């Protein structure tokens, strides 16, 4: 056992002793979601409230003493009911905590040891009140493996990470394992890249390992550009040291001595926490020269992105670190052969790197015991949209969509957020590169391979659930508009093709389309897929093709009958007045910008559809709900 590990044992022993001496520990969630809801104010309020009681507030956990230690954690996943506060050792779980509730929590729970019932979570379907997080179906049905420490430990405290056996995997590979052995371990674990494609991580590493040359790089891809996905953000904010540790293991496996964490600039908190984690790791000698008493050296830097979705693509990301426009380049050569500044480089996603230390510590066999045989392990998903519980969830690969939507996320809601169990229409998985899943796929086990067979992909794990009121053409248009504006412009078919596809979708939604439009749209989609260099262009048509495949009738209704079945496409509405409800108040008539409304005071008004420009002003202004936009 080397000196570093002995040092860890002491750190761990001391930390555990300090934690044991506490009378209570209060965990306040400080993930982006809870911060938005004001969790910092809750955190600050605790100091004042504790002062007013006879309890001792412990600001920093530096020595063994009795008292209450209030600490911040990363995202606990259940953002919707935040700010979240957990009281240890009782594990009492409070939701929607406001600063004014803090005094009550201190007096009732910390002083008297009683539960404050009004802040507990009530499961909406069965009206079951849950005292601890473990009783809540949202947590119960998950398999938290990579996220197990997220929301539990203080992400800004390296000692707490070490106390949870952190950096032991890095110590093990640096001191006791040869590079080849590390690659073999990861390969045999079957770990696949969590960023999208699902390429075997061990294979990627091995390709870089066998390259000659002194200088090699490890890059962590934290450019989570997929709108509606925040898994990587959750990990970087909640457990940044696990990412750094994964990078140390990777650097050892390929003999790299420098690395970058590329973080999206829209995640300021993640940037801050990763930076702090790196500084702390340097201070403890876990980064830099001869780490863990071995020959191995590894330097790590943070690079902030500047807002370009395409930079999630490996070669574009490399160009961005080199200070260029983030445009992809053809593969081969693969980055593992010639990457950053022409040197062998491996690029791994945040979640993949965060999984690596767990694989090293638990062994390949145990890792393979969860998930499917071709896609072992777990996957985090950001479940959002029309579901009861939105948030960050982790499931074994091979779990079904039904498990996620109805089990963890608590089922579908209407537009107003009311539960509507049979309201499921579709779920978009993999963001703008993925496809949609319908009710036929509810029982399909989700893994990297199963989704490819139906024209979708796991992608980074964004899962947007949509109810029956969602127009699928407008969903496809939304993603098309996204990829069109994010196309880097290098390939003609991606640059111009996406623009034309967007125009065709606009035609469909605004009633200008003919039956030929659908045919052109499909042809163009296939051409864009074939004629683009990188993943962005190759997958840009996926949302269109997959909605066309599963919801063709909806497209046809727009085209043939100029009718939107969900009534969401404004341009296809025909506004009319319900004479029975109209009071003849003249309000709509005065507001109509084109004078399409006729009828005097006190008489029912009429809208002339030949003049109407479908702006909807009349509908918004009618106090008697007499105007409808539905097709008659």
């Amino acid at each position, binding site marked *: 056992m080397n000196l570093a590990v002995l040092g860890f044992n002491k750190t761990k022993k001391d930390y555990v002793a300090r934690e044991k001496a506490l009378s209570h520990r209060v965990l306040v969630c400080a993930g982006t979601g809870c911060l938005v809801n004001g969790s910092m104010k809750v955190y600050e309020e605790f100091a004042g409230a504790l002062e007013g009681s006879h309890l001792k507030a412990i600001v920093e956990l530096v020595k063994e003493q009795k008292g209450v230690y209030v600490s911040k954690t990363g995202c606990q996943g259940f953002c919707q009911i935040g700010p979240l506060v957990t009281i240890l050792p009782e594990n009492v779980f409070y939701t929607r905590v406001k600063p004014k509730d803090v005094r009550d929590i201190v007096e009732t729970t910390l002083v008297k040891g009683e539960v404050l019932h009004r802040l507990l979570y009530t499961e909406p379907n069965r009206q079951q009140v849950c005292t601890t997080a473990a009783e809540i179906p949202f947590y119960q049905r998950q398999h938290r493996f990579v996220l197990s420490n997220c929301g539990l430990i203080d992400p800004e405290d390296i000692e707490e990470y070490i106390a949870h056996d952190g950096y032991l995997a890095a110590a093990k590979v640096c001191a006791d394992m040869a590079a080849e052995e590390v690659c073999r371990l990861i390969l045999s674990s079957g770990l696949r890249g969590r960023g999208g494609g699902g390429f075997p991580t061990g294979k990627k590493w091995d390709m870089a390992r066998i390259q000659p040359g002194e200088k090699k790089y490890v890059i962590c891809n934290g450019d989570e550009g997929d709108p*509606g996905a*925040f898994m990587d953000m959750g990990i970087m904010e909640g457990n940044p040291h696990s990412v750094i540790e994964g990078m140390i293991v990777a650097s050892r496996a390929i003999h790299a001595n420098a690395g970058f964490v590329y973080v999206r600039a829209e995640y300021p908190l993640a940037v801050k926490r990763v930076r702090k984690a790196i500084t702390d790791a340097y201070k403890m000698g876990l980064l830099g020269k001869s780490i863990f008493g071995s020959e191995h050296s590894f330097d790590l830097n943070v690079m902030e992105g*500047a807002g370009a979705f395409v930079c999630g693509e490996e070669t574009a990301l490399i160009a961005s670190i080199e200070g260029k426009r983030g445009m992809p380049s053809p593969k081969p050569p693969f980055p593992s052969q010639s990457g950053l500044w022409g040197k062998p480089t491996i690029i791994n996603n945040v979640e993949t790197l965060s999984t690596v230390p767990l694989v090293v510590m638990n062994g390949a066999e145990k890792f393979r015991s969860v998930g499917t045989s071709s896609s072992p392990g777990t996957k985090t998903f950001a479940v959002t949209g029309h579901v009861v519980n939105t948030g960050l969830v982790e499931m074994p690969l091979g779990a079904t969509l039904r498990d996620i939507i109805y089990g963890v996320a608590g089922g579908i809601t209407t537009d107003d957020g009311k539960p509507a169990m049979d309201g499921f229409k579709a779920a978009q998985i993999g963001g703008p590169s993925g496809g949609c899943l319908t009710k036929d796929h509810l029982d399909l086990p989700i893994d990297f391979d199963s989704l490819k067979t139906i024209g979708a992909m796991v992608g980074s794990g964004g899962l947007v659930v949509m109810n029956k009121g969602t127009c699928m053409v407008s969903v496809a248009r939304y993603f098309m508009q996204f990829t069109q504006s994010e196309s880097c412009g290098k390939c003609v078919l991606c640059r111009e093709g996406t623009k034309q596809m967007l125009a065709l979708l606009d035609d469909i939604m605004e009633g200008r389309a003919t039956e030929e439009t659908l045919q052109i749209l499909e042809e163009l989609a296939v051409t864009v897929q074939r004629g683009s260099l990188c993943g962005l262009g190759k997958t840009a048509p996926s949302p269109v093709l997959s909605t066309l495949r599963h919801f063709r009738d909806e497209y046809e209704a727009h085209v043939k009958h100029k009718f939107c079945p969900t009534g969401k496409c404004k341009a296809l509405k025909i506004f009319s007045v319900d004479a029975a409800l109209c009071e003849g108040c003249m309000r709509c008539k005065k507001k109509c910008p084109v004078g399409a409304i006729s009828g005097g005071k006190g008489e029912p008004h009429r809208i002339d559809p030949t003049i109407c420009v479908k702006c909807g002003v009349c509908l918004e202004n009618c106090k008697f709900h007499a105007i409808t936009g539905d097709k008659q």
Partner: protein
Amino acid sequence: MEELRKFERVWEIIDQHGRDASRLIPILQAVQTEYRYLPEEILTFVATSVGVSPAKVFGVATFYSLFTLEPKGKYHVRVCNGTACHVKRSMDLHKSICQKLNLRDGKDSTSDMLFTVETVNCLGACGLAPAMVVNEEVYGQLTPERAVEIIHEIIQKEAAA
């Protein structure tokens, strides 16, 4: 003198990054934090200092969406239009804010330069959709009415100041 002082700060930033062309993006980020946008003469200055052509610097500055060549209003309102926010009708927030501020025909800044209203692809606050951010402050689970109220509060605060 004023002009000179302006470039002095840019010099400091460039020096901090070792006048290294590969540090171009962090340099531009620091310059933008300083001036709140990227003035054209400074782009040329940066180009000459790190030894690349102004066209290349301009190319980088226009490629990334976080860089802006136009000055922004005092309050930078960014409405999230990520997928989760979009399906929860975040564009209605955008529309009502633009209406409130009388922004029409693709204009995104008010004439008094108090507000700039834009959309952003994803803030990562998807659990709280729809969301928007005003300068650094993030607001979640909004309705168009609440969004307009927030803008109104800022206008009142500014009028009182």
